[in-house]
């Protein structure tokens, strides 16, 4: 349990939900407050105190939502925590954190290309990045569950 994260929970920015195996603490937050949370993390943990491991985007077809998990590794103990949020599947938009944390470049672009989530404020978003052009022309996002590729 990390104190700084605990403070954020107390302030109501994060909500403790459970764990992902093996022993990764899971927190939920609402997607409008993403920049606030990462600003707080930068302030409290410092530039050298953590790094963004990855963002996992999952298409939850039955809830009509796209789930975004931000995996943050807190140094020096290397404790992995998971920050989870949901965006609407039909209108997937979330603020980019690229200017705060440059490491978000790779995962944000990847999720944009594979799942179609728009990260507002990220200038590098572009299609086709790697999905073949014929799929881009048809507007298919290959990792969405209803995409037939």
């Amino acid at each position: 349990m990390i104190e700084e994260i605990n403070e954020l929970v107390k302030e109501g920015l994060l909500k403790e939900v459970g764990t992902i195996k093996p022993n990764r603490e899971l927190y939920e937050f609402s997607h409008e407050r993403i920049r606030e949370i990462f600003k707080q993390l930068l302030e409290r943990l410092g530039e050298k105190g953590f790094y963004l491991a990855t963002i996992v985007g999952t298409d939850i077809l039955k809830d009509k939502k796209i789930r975004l998990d931000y995996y943050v590794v807190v140094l020096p103990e290397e404790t992995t925590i998971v920050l989870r949020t949901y965006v609407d599947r039909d209108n997937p938009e979330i603020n980019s954190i690229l200017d705060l944390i440059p490491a978000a470049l790779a995962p944000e672009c990847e999720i944009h290309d594979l799942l179609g989530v728009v990260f507002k404020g990220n200038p590098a978003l572009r299609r086709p990045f790697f999905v073949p052009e014929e799929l881009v022309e048809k507007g298919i996002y290959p990792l969405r569950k209803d995409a037939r590729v």
Partner: protein
Amino acid sequence: MEKENKSDGKAKIIRYTPWLVHFNTGACNGCDIEVLAALTPFYDVERFGIKLAPSIRHGDILLVTGAVTKKAGERLKRLYEQMPGPKFVIAVGTCACTGGVFAKSYSVYAGADKVVPVDMYIPGCPPRPEAIIDGIAKLLKKLEQS
């Protein structure tokens, strides 16, 4: 794909010093490091007069590794067209032969023979350097007979 320049007699010339060009069309690097290993002291394909050419314009044999992805497929075609004839293509590894485990993916053509004519297939995931030498030797033997 059918080969255009089937046998015009010129093929015999290159059998003493065939120069290889290696192109990775979306391989997992396994075949690439085995091609590299075939050039190093233990296996040493230079015994056959084979040299890794830096540019496609010098090459006689194109080694293709990897399940040909759609983006790299265009490049492969362009490289093949830029090669001086007589030219030969060797597909190294299961992926380059038929696509292997990636054959059903949405972004691969599955197999180099879908894009360029292939003269020799070397299966294996990845093929041993010995197998690569064996494949090249078999191709050279074929040229001798042509």
